[in-house]
């Protein structure tokens, strides 16, 4: 299934900047960055659970926020892209 992850991490302190880097690193391991602080991840239920736990572990719930949008298995007609940097279809033919 496709999960869209967006986050807001407060970067006023250096600890916040560190959290931001860690969040983006974890997201990157599971999916592709489609915009700043927006990731698309094609994961199964188990991978999603681990990913969620990892992220919750990193953030500070008093200052940061995380949002998960679950777009299911038939996500292709739910996503429209306009403009530069189109994302790769991770389940279509990958020929580079």
């Amino acid at each position, binding site marked *: 299934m496709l999960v869209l992850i967006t986050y807001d991490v407060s970067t006023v302190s250096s600890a916040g900047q560190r959290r931001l880097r860690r969040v983006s*690193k974890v997201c*990157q*391991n*599971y*999916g*592709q960055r489609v915009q700043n602080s927006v990731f698309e*991840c*094609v*994961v*199964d239920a188990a*991978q999603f659970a681990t990913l969620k736990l990892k992220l919750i572990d990193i953030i500070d719930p008093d200052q940061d926020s995380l949002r998960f949008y679950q777009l299911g298995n038939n996500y292709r007609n739910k996503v429209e892209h306009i403009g530069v940097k189109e994302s*790769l279809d*991770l*389940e*279509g*033919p*990958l*020929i*580079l």
Partner: protein
Amino acid sequence: MKKLLNTLFITQPDVYLSLDGDNVILLKEQEKLGRLPLHNLESIVAFGYTGASPAFMGYCADRNISLVFLTMSGRFLARVIGASKGNVVLRKKQYLLSENELLSAKIARNFIVGKIFNHKWMIERMTRDYPLRVNVDQFKEVSQHLSSIMMDVRACEDLERLRGLEGQAAVSYNALLDQMILQQKEHFYFRTRSRKPPLDNVNAMLSLAYTLLANDTASALEAVGLDAYVGFLHRDRPGRASLALDVMEELRGIYADKFVLTLINKKIVNHEDFLHKENGAVIMTDEARKKFLAAWQNKKQEKITHPYLSEKISWGLVPYAQALLLARHLRNDLDEYPPFLWK
């Protein structure tokens, strides 16, 4: 059944693969071409002289992502294999059986039964669908011939004879392959199988399809803990994935040949997609190879019902399903190896 993951094909020769976290990074002259999360990938096939960092190769070996290097024309160069995993007992059993001619023959004949059955089915299907375009009498004759060979194969307990019967069946099937090409006949014809190098358009495509299928089969076998290099029908030879070739026999016609025929008959490829070299070798253009690979990937995603497991799986998982069944037979959970009999 596991989920079929994607395959990444790299068709540019000057790309370097490196690892960053759980991502593969594609570098071209120090420039980042792209990054992909590796948990979506099942295998990576690199054409040309694409390089990869040791860390990346280690990661792939560790996670059972098959990494294969081919030449630009699709000839096999190398495969990255990590530490052997899975069950030692299973592998020892495999070695033990492969040393025994009689027991090997008993397994090997099922591969051949599967192969001939599927060829026969393709022939029958052609006479049903195109009675006016093919020589029905000849097709029926071959079909009957294949049936009788199949009976002999069922009872055969000698490897040499088995290879002879397989050869006979292959000759009569190959004689009809040309007639199964219904479109673009002036550019696509099948006289005889030629390889290293392929000498006509059809052979060029067959070679690539067989290479891709062999790689998929080899990694499926290793995923279930078997040794892809120790076969029952094919003799051991350094560097040859004999067991992969064994298991692949039953899929050649139904999977690879049929795929190539579809590309021609649906006019997905045409004669401009091929380059003829001075030494007679025929290779596909870069564009054609991309079309070929895209169609191959789409075929792998198509769903079928596995005739023995009665379970809905994608075509791309058929080698894996057969590898599982073979492992079950070697563990004595199944009396016989059930070949993939497609209808």
